[in-house]
């Protein structure tokens, strides 16, 4: 459907609406509830995106099926909540957000295919999506080729920056360094044992962590171990931990392996209230599967915990539970996914346009004061300024906030001295 056809179809309606407005001047006094102030579609959409006078379409692209559905379900839920709230508050430039949800099915080529479909066929104005780095790497060339806008929620290894992507999660240095500094100071930790799943994110994260431990904290890494994704037997490495007696166990084990690791750690008699453990991969979502009793006492280092005590979060958590059920929990990535639609809305309004080029240019400096994690701002490198926090896992599966950085931490996806 061309834009011209669109206009032809809708203009009588718009005319009627405007006449109605003129007849009832009181309505025009309401700031947001009318479409009268919405700028003309031809002005805010010069590249043929799916924007009409009343609606704008965005895409949601996550795995609703397959092995990653465990993790990505929360992101889908958060994005839908954000879209609903934005619509309730009057939409974006006077237009309601409509979303098209596609299933990446935990398969990276499918992600690329669906991203292309969203951009080429549906002409979505933005995509909220991807979770694993592998899916993002598959989608990246597509959004760059067709000039789309992707809002990516997961904390990740860094070493990437694109005009077409806004990274709403933390990159590795933001997440890790503050946590290591804290535990070194607080626990006087000198020796560290690293254990991770064997793929890009844990390996890159541990590389950064090792440099920091050795060069900045002047400590020692007494072990660095990787296990294949999905590994369920950790007894040997647990014995190695017992032998080396590190001050801190630093973990980035992911997925089903996480559950096995913490259950076996507990079964081996390692008491996490006495043996400090710092994880960068366990959120409230994961604890659901691990069981609070198996991980209580462990420290997690990220930017958001469901238990955060601030007005934004106190409104966000009940709204989320109201929409998705009392029992759902909200982890770091879920919160980051919630930021996506909001940041996009704020950027569109700042740019006064849905055009991707204008959004990309307007993104740096966009602030979101209503973020559940507090306040965030987009950096020139399209990552977010955010605080880093350390929480301690409790029996009920929630984290208790122990420490947060005083200032926002600058995102640094290409850290010098850490590569």
């Amino acid at each position, binding site marked *: 459907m061309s834009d011209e056809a669109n206009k032809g179809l809708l203009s009588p309606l718009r005319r009627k609406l405007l006449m109605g407005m003129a007849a009832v001047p009181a309505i025009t006094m309401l700031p947001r509830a009318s479409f009268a102030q919405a700028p003309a579609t031809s002005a805010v959409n010069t590249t043929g995106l799916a924007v009409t006078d009343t609606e704008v379409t965005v895409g949601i692209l996550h795995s609703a099926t397959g092995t990653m559905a465990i993790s990505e379900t929360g992101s889908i839920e958060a994005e839908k909540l954000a879209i609903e709230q934005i619509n309730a508050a009057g939409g974006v430039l006077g237009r309601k957000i409509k979303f098209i949800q596609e299933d990446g099915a935990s398969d990276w080529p499918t992600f690329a295919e669906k991203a292309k479909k969203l951009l080429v066929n549906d002409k979505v104005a933005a995509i909220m999506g991807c979770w694993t780095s592998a899916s993002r790497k598959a989608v990246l060339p597509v959004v760059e080729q067709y000039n789309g806008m992707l809002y990516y929620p997961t904390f990740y290894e860094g070493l990437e920056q694109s005009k077409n992507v806004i990274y709403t999660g933390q990159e590795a240095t933001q997440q890790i360094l503050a946590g290591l500094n804290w535990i070194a100071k607080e626990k006087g930790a000198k020796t560290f044992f690293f254990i991770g799943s064997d793929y890009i994110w844990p390996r890159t994260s541990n590389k950064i962590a090792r440099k920091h431990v050795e060069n900045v904290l002047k400590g020692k890494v007494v072990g660095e171990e*990787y296990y294949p994704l999905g590994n369920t037997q950790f007894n040997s490495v647990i014995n190695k931990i017992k032998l080396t007696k590190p001050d801190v166990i630093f973990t980035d084990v992911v997925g089903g392996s996480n559950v096995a690791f913490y*259950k076996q750690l507990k079964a081996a008699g390692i008491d996490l209230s006495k043996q400090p453990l710092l994880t960068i991969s366990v959120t409230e979502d994961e604890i*659901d599967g691990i069981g609070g009793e198996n991980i209580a006492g462990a420290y997690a280092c990220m930017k958001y915990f469901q238990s955060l005590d601030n007005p934004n979060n106190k409104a966000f958590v009940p709204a989320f539970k109201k929409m998705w059920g009392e029992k759902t929990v909200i982890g770091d990535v879920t919160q980051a996914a919630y930021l996506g639609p909001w940041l996009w809305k704020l950027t569109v309004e700042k740019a006064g346009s849905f055009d991707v080029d204008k959004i990309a240019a307007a993104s740096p400096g966009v602030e979101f004061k209503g973020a559940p994690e507090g306040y965030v701002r987009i950096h020139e490198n399209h990552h977010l300024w955010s605080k880093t926090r350390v929480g301690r896992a409790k029996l009920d599966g929630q984290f208790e906030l122990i420490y947060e950085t005083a200032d926002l931490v600058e995102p640094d996806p290409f850290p010098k001295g850490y590569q």
Partner: protein
Amino acid sequence: MFGDYSLGDLGSIFVMQGFAGLILFSVYVLMALGLAIIFGQMGVINMAHGEFMILGAYVTWMTSNLFQTYMPSLFGGYFFLAMILAFVASGALGMLVEWVLIRHLYKRPLDTLLATWGLSLMLQQAYRSVFGAREVGVELPQWMLGSLHVTDSIEVPINGVFVMCLTVLITISVAYVLYMSRWGRQVRAVVQNRIMAGAVGINTEKVDRYTFGLGCGIAGVAGSAFTMIGSTGPTSGQLYIVDTFLVVVFGGAASLLGTIASAFSISQTQSTLEFFMSGSMAKVLTLLAVVGILMLRPQGLFALKVRK
């Protein structure tokens, strides 16, 4: 690597490492037994084995919730009932699957691979729709958590001991059923020569169905036991399937003893290597060794002598 540690430390670590190996051995046997019966005895390549295990895990989860809500005083013992229920549920599903799907494919063993793979995808999605995409946490009774304190530095995980005992019990029962009972003799007769077995009056269809059901039921018990050491989610079954086939194929199909011997050698290699190098490298070397041995002995460690 050991220079920095005292002899006492090293001694206790070796003891615990020995236990780690034994626990891994039990886990391998437990997950492979069901498949050894189905693949080994019936020649059906059951790619949905992992999903039958996870059904057992979900049954355990439901039982635990039920006990917590209605009989919190008996919570300490729920696990035993859960394992029986897991056996019944997975066994019943197995018999249904045999009747609907597998019995039409006995003459086309390679097609069972495709059919059961499809089945595994369907089951995964069914779990996802029924129980949700997120993993569920199975709460264990207090006495099953933690470790036995042997000395100051030697601690033995209770769940590991539990899995070991369970494995011994189930292995003995299966061996008894297959090699000592009348029904087991019928199973072996059908395996060796289906037509002749039918001719001497054995109801081969019935034997097939119960054998398949037994294999799946044992998978269910394994899944139930693994809630102690692993995760329970729609796709958790996939974590076990590769290792399971590895153990069964390496041991030589159709041989219970082979399965046990292969589980033992793979688990000991794996756990020893894991101690001296990174987990991923240990896995690579173990797989290389298995491939090497299978090239020399394609029939696996133990194989029935059959006239071709």
